[in-house]
């Protein structure tokens, strides 16, 4: 019997299994266990959560392998980790460590200003950020098996995540009414391969799973992103920067499962510990906007 590994189907398939779930940023094995216990479907192992990366400045890089190994050993759910945009050696290192998914992330300082990683060359699947349909399809063309809208990480402000999700979903719904004759020119305008544009039109959604990320701070934020069409939610600083991480983690998981049930949403939003303090986007200097990294 022929056994095939690392196919696009099994890469994208793991993302299918994460749907309806919450992926949480964790910086220690102890955080990872709290996240797993609260019902996270996966964890993102990193040295600093985005809000700390934002406040401490400097070059943000892949985390130390010992930290990632410690987190892999602590939990049985899939473990993701981040590499800098274009840094294919960091990606090779993470693949060797056995991480289950690599996030080529704008939250870290980009390593290449022209090219993202050729993700087809790796056995491990990649997730990448996007702000609009063109960016999502360019990443898929490079081999991404999962997409997340970027939002603005480390702000606790949902506005950018909403903007990016609405941009992607709005473009997909406009695509539905386009005739074949419009597709080539539309593909050129958004800078995406026409075959992927056609596939998106036929499926009525992105060809891979699409999570929301960047600014989710409350259960209501998470449910909002689900109602806007996200398949699941990444929560970065929102959990371990809140006053009671375990409770916040539980509440956000429940809100994602029951995102259409207003009574449950009211219940999980009641008497919550304080969410992380947020940042207004227009108070952030232009050079510190993370979503602008990548193209």
């Amino acid at each position, binding site marked *: *019997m*022929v056994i095939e590994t690392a196919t696009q189907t*099994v890469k994208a398939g793991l993302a299918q299994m994460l749907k309806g779930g919450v992926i949480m940023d964790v910086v220690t094995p102890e955080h990872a266990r709290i996240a797993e216990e609260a019902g996270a*479907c996966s964890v993102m192992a990193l040295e600093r959560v985005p809000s700390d990366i934002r406040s401490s400045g400097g070059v943000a890089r892949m985390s130390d392998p010992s930290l990632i190994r410690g987190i892999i050993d602590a939990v*049985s759910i899939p473990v993701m980790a981040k590499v800098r945009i274009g840094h294919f050696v960091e990606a090779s290192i993470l693949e060797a460590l056995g991480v289950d998914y690599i996030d080529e992330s704008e939250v870290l300082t980009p390593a290449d200003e022209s090219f993202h990683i050729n993700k087809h060359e790796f056995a491990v699947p990649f997730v990448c950020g996007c702000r609009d349909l063109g960016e999502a399809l360019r990443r898929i063309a490079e081999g991404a098996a999962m997409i997340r809208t970027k939002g603005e990480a480390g702000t606790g402000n949902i506005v950018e995540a909403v903007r990016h999700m609405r941009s992607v979903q709005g473009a997909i*719904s406009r695509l539905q009414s386009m005739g074949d004759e419009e597709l080539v020119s539309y593909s050129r305008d958004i800078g995406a391969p026409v075959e992927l544009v056609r596939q998106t039109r036929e499926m*009525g959604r992105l060809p891979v799973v699409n999570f929301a990320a960047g600014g989710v701070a409350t259960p209501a934020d998470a449910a909002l992103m689900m109602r806007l069409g996200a398949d699941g939610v990444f929560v970065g600083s929102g959990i371990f920067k809140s006053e009671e991480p375990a409770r916040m983690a539980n509440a956000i998981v429940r809100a994602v*499962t029951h995102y259409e049930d207003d009574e449950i949403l009211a219940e999980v939003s009641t008497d919550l510990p304080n969410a992380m303090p947020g940042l207004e986007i227009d108070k952030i200097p232009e050079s510190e906007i993370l979503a602008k990294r990548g193209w």
Partner: protein
Amino acid sequence: MVNGTREGMELVTELTTHSAGGAERSGSVVVGVLALQGDFAEHAAAVGRVGADVLEVRTVEQLHRVDGLIIPGGESTTIARLMIAYGLREPIIERGREGLPIWGTCAGAILLAEEIVTLDRPGLHLMPMTVERNAYGRQIDSFEADLSSGALGGGPLHAIFIRAPRIRSVAEDVEVLLRLGAEQGHEPVAVQWDSLMATTFHPELTEDNRLHERFVGMCEAYASAKTSRSATKAAGRSAAAAAGGSG
């Protein structure tokens, strides 16, 4: 729903109905898909392709309306935890013991097993078999293979295994439906025990509907047996009433 962008998902369901295999059912059975986390939407679409009605199950009330339950792929720790947190675990066990058809795929197969290797919280423990989680390795070891169709009939069945569990042993009366090849030790990957079915791979990610057809058939048998049971009871009651009336 406040916002309509989710309609895209329904469109996917519609677009994939082309491979329906010609099944036109009466729509008399309702197949539940446990929708706590995982790829429940793909299962719902596949059930729709074989012509049965689908209900996403997130509450006990919904559980009591179904003639069968699919526990989808996803993270077994997450689904196990949410079943307990939302009060669904005991009611599912109860209905399973009463004969409700239940089919677990991947994470769902883990949760059905009586013995689970390395799950730190209770599953449903309904089916006499031992299953080991993530037993083929991490994500880079996930794989696809063509299985010979065995008990299902027809051509080979393409199977997708993602961080899949391994069925380590089954009780004597568990029927093995599908196995891996000789090089992989012929290990079982699809098994059935009365009204319970478990597969360690993901039929919902392919267009091959044979296992969904089989499961919907199990649900139909359960529903019609239930109807005839309640008809017998009703007949008994009216006979008793008639007898009482005459006395």
